């Protein structure tokens, strides 16, 4: 049985996980478009979305949809707090300090989650049942995957409308592209970054709620997910929403398909190898990037 036989099924799995990576990547890109900051705690937003929902269902007995909604709102508040307590005080700090601070926040969030909610993996019920659909050449897709794909599309569309059609979105972009100009035209930069963190946290939480029925989530799942989401954002085209989507799916598919050819333990390494290759050969990413000019980055 050659490895190639598995490819279609792995492709399907890859598209699903790719959608998650895409959502995480969108979260990164949203903050970068407002502030040129890379938020290493992004993955934790995803993790908290799933974990808090689980806690609200099991611990407080709330119905599923309400728990999910409250969890997302809670994570948005956490995103705002992250900005107010960590990012805003360091608004004038160097790149190095910001990296370390968001890494520190990632440590705080993941370990506080372990503290409050325990370290055991958590799972949530699927939205519309567990029975896998069978399509094409015997490929099984969990219905949840369709929910994930659908949500990814909706969120991507919303972000597109936000950045291109609303004043708020354009203001957010302006404050990143030209901080001085933004200040002079009355855009409150820090407020824009504040919103960006909230939006980003919300998207992450939604991704978390969507993906937990498919894969277990636990307190330390966020770190790796965040890194892979970041890699996806770089791969697709740094700083572009479309790049985040493309990169997410590309990474998910390559990673998933690679299992057919290399021992599964190396799977997590694949993403990092891709990262190194992309950074070395084409740092702008597949679709190119408006942010990278060789002098600054």
């Amino acid at each position, binding site marked *: 049985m050659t490895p190639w036989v598995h490819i279609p099924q792995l492709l399907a799995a890859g598209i699903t996980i790719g959608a998650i990576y895409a959502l995480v990547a969108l979260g990164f890109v949203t903050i970068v478009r407002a502030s040129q900051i890379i938020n290493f705690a992004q993955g934790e937003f995803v993790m908290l979305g799933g974990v808090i929902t689980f806690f609200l269902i099991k611990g407080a007995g709330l119905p599923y949809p309400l728990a999910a909604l409250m969890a997302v709102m809670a994570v948005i508040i956490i995103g705002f707090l992250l900005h107010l307590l960590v990012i805003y005080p360091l608004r004038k700090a160097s790149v190095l300090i910001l990296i370390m601070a968001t890494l520190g926040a990632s440590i705080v969030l993941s370990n506080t989650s372990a*503290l409050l909610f325990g370290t055991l993996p958590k799972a949530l019920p699927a939205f519309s049942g567990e029975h896998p659909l069978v399509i094409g050449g015997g490929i099984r897709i969990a219905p949840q995957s369709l929910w994930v794909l659908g949500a990814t599309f909706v969120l991507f569309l919303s972000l597109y409308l936000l950045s291109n059609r609303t004043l708020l979105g354009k203001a957010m972009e302006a404050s990143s592209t030209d901080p001085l100009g933004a200040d002079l035209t009355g855009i409150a930069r820090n407020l824009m970054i504040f919103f960006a963190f909230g939006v980003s946290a919300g998207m992450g939480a939604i991704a978390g709620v969507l993906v937990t029925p498919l894969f277990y989530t636990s307190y330390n799942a966020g770190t790796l997910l965040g890194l892979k989401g970041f890699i996806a954002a770089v791969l697709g085209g740094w700083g572009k929403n479309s790049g985040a989507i493309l990169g997410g799916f590309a990474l998910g598919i390559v990673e998933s398909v690679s299992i057919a050819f290399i021992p599964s333990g190396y799977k997590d390494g694949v993403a990092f190898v891709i990262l190194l290759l992309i950074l070395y050969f084409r740092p702008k990413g597949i679709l190119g990037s408006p942010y990278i000019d060789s002098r600054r980055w």
Partner: protein
Amino acid sequence: MVAENKNEFRKRDLLYTGGLWLISLILPDPHLPYRREFIKKRDFFYLGALVLLPLILADPLIYLMALAGIYAILALGLSLFLGYAGQISLGHAAFFGIGAYTTAILTTRYAVPTVGAFWASAFVAAAFAYLIGKPILKLKGYFLALATLGFGEIFLVIVKESRGLTGGVSGIFGIPWFSVAGFAFDTYLKQYYLIWGVLIGLVLFAKNLVRSKTGRSLLAVAASEDAAASVGINVAQVKVRVFVVSAAFAGLAGSLFACVMSTANPGGFSLGLSVLIVMMVIMGGMGNLYGPIFAAIFLTWLTDVLGGYQEYSLPIFGVILILLLIFFPDGVGTRLNARLIYLISYWGRKRRRERVDI
């Protein structure tokens, strides 16, 4: 009346000045990196304290200081790369691990004497740094940080999967004590002196380096790559070379770590450790050699203290990290003298205000 007050103030000022002189004797101030002289009087005080410290410390604390010494070697190496040349690396734990595993494999499987394994560890770590450095160091800022992080993660994945070579997740056991010509460093006390002895040697090496044209080329690269190139400094080559040297330091530290712990397993070389070492350099102050060493001692002690709080330890550690970054981005020692002066003189100023407001 005026003359009276003047005398009063003079006595007080003398007291403060004396106290401050005593304190400045002990603390290194990263804001004075310009006094790059070779040996200062203060250094003899440090040396004496190091030599005498184990006499007053209990055994577990000696172990802690030995461990701190190993991390200090790591921090010293990274400070050349990060503190002087201004480049970010979030993957130095990998070089630490490469050194540890090299020693582990050579001593347990090929019966190589520990001294040989010691130097081999440095060499192997340096070789990896060279291979990885050449392409990666073209990147700057966030992307360099991420590339080094990626390298660190790849290292962990490979180590965990290569059961044959590295013993996988469980690691390698039974690494012998470090020994030189039959003398084995088998107690915490002996290991303490070994490690700090190595550190002192490396500090002297680093001090020389920093005072020379090589040291200046590092600082120039950090200050302005264009200006450095304009005076003939091959910026890319300097970056690779300092990366290699810092990795060699990490390799040496890893070798000592393996001999002290007698085991080598992937748990000790995670991203968390890389972050910790970078914190040591930031806390110690950029452009400073002693600062990161003090920070290493402080942070090792801190992680030990927090370890006692079990599951609370990591969240608290993360919060402390963030607070340190917000309040001491230049390093803890910076302006510490000035801040202490301000604090101590507060009492005097308050008294003076009370006096004059009759």
